[in-house]
């Protein structure tokens, strides 16, 4: 058996139309997940092809467009965490990006890769979910746009077709919103989340008028906690309402016991993460 899958380096997106659809297609960008899978023998090398999209011009760049911020799928987390447009229009993502991996990983790992990998613990996912992100996709030259949350069907599983490439992420521009991201793991740096939370909200006179909350690593996929909003919107923010919100969050979370943490701990720590995130955004 070959140790390596087949390798193909397209020059531009048009080349994607020539991909061998009978093989399992893995798009290779920073390689920070893919090379771990290869090392661990999780890739059937005989029937797989690595398509190297790292140098595709079409996947690079961060641009402000009329209604959204467009981040090329090949943009690294190092670029995202320091970019002024991201800080302005996608503040939750800017925070989350800086918590991913290590400096070495952030110099290589891309936002498109984090999405395609579809780990329940992928730290960009709750940040993108609260901001209503959409994805630009290219399937052998056929383009479409989907909501981020519509592609995840389970841990590390998406409904993208074989050979369908994420080319960009679109984040709707919203004025007057602010947000925060919190995660917890076994130590401070280079941690895969045991639990994470993203909060994005808009206040008027210290009263929450809109709020989106997404949870990571506590369910098979990233989840939006929509039921929590009504506990907080137009309510005084005090220990009573926060406790109600935490109870509502616990009903959304469906954590599991695994090698990284226990379900009971994840459930419990979620409330603390929520308090931390909220306290950075509103006074109570």
């Amino acid at each position, binding site marked *: 058996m070959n140790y390596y899958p087949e390798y193909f*380096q397209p020059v531009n997106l048009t080349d994607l139309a020539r991909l061998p659809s009978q093989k399992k297609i893995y798009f290779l960008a920073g*390689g920070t997940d893919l090379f771990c899978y290869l090392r661990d023998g999780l890739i059937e090398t005989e029937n797989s092809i*690595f398509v190297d999209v790292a140098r595709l011009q079409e996947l690079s760049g961060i641009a402000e467009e009329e209604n959204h911020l467009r981040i090329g799928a090949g943009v690294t987390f190092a670029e995202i965490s320091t970019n002024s447009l991201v800080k302005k229009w996608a503040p939750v993502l800017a925070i989350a990006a800086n918590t991913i991996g290590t*400096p070495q*990983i952030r110099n*290589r790992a891309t936002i498109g890769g984090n999405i395609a990998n579809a780990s329940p613990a992928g730290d960009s996912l709750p940040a993108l979910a609260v901001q209503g992100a959409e994805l630009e996709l290219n399937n052998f030259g056929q383009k479409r746009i989907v909501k981020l949350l519509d592609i995840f069907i389970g841990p590390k599983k998406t409904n993208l077709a074989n050979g369908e490439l994420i080319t960009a992420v679109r984040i709707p521009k919203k004025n007057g919103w602010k947000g925060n991201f919190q995660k917890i793991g076994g130590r401070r*740096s*280079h941690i895969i989340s045991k639990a994470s939370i993203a909060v994005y909200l808009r206040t008027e006179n210290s009263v929450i008028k809109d709020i989106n909350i997404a949870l990571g690593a506590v369910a098979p996929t990233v989840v939006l906690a929509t039921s929590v909003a009504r506990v907080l919107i137009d309510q005084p923010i005090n220990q009573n309402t926060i406790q109600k919100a935490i109870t509502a969050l616990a009903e959304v979370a469906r954590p599991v016991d695994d090698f990284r943490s226990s379900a009971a701990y994840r459930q419990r720590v979620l409330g603390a993460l929520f308090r931390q995130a909220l306290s950075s955004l509103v006074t109570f």
Partner: protein
Amino acid sequence: MKEIKFILNDEPVVVRTEPLKTLLRVLREDLKHTEVKAGCEQGECGSCTVILDGKIVNSCLVPIAQVEGSRVITIAGLSKNGELHPIQRAFIEEGAVQCGFCIPGMILSTKVLLEKTLSPTDEQIREGLSGNLCRCTGYIKIFQAVKKAAQYLKK
């Protein structure tokens, strides 16, 4: 097999190898640059850190095909004319090296950190070296070495 050209420690090199072989394996096996250490080979430990086009990366996760035309610096590229680089000197003087396995990566991460600032705070050192694990020292002496190296480089 694919022919890959890149600049290694300021010298042009050509290798003919599998395009998906990692930069780490190519450096160690094809080019005999065993100063680049293979630790976890899954991007956790930072032993295999090299500087690729000015940025630190885990060479265990970089396919050689993506190195075509790039500049790679390993620890062997730091000393010039038999003289140790000031960062290497500081690490030795401060006793920051015990088993030594993490040190090539640790020093390269320090180099990139000190290119950004020569007055790093403890938090900046912690952040800059957060991708390099040392299981011997407890990091105190490494922090001292980084600060001493910054002083040397200021002069």
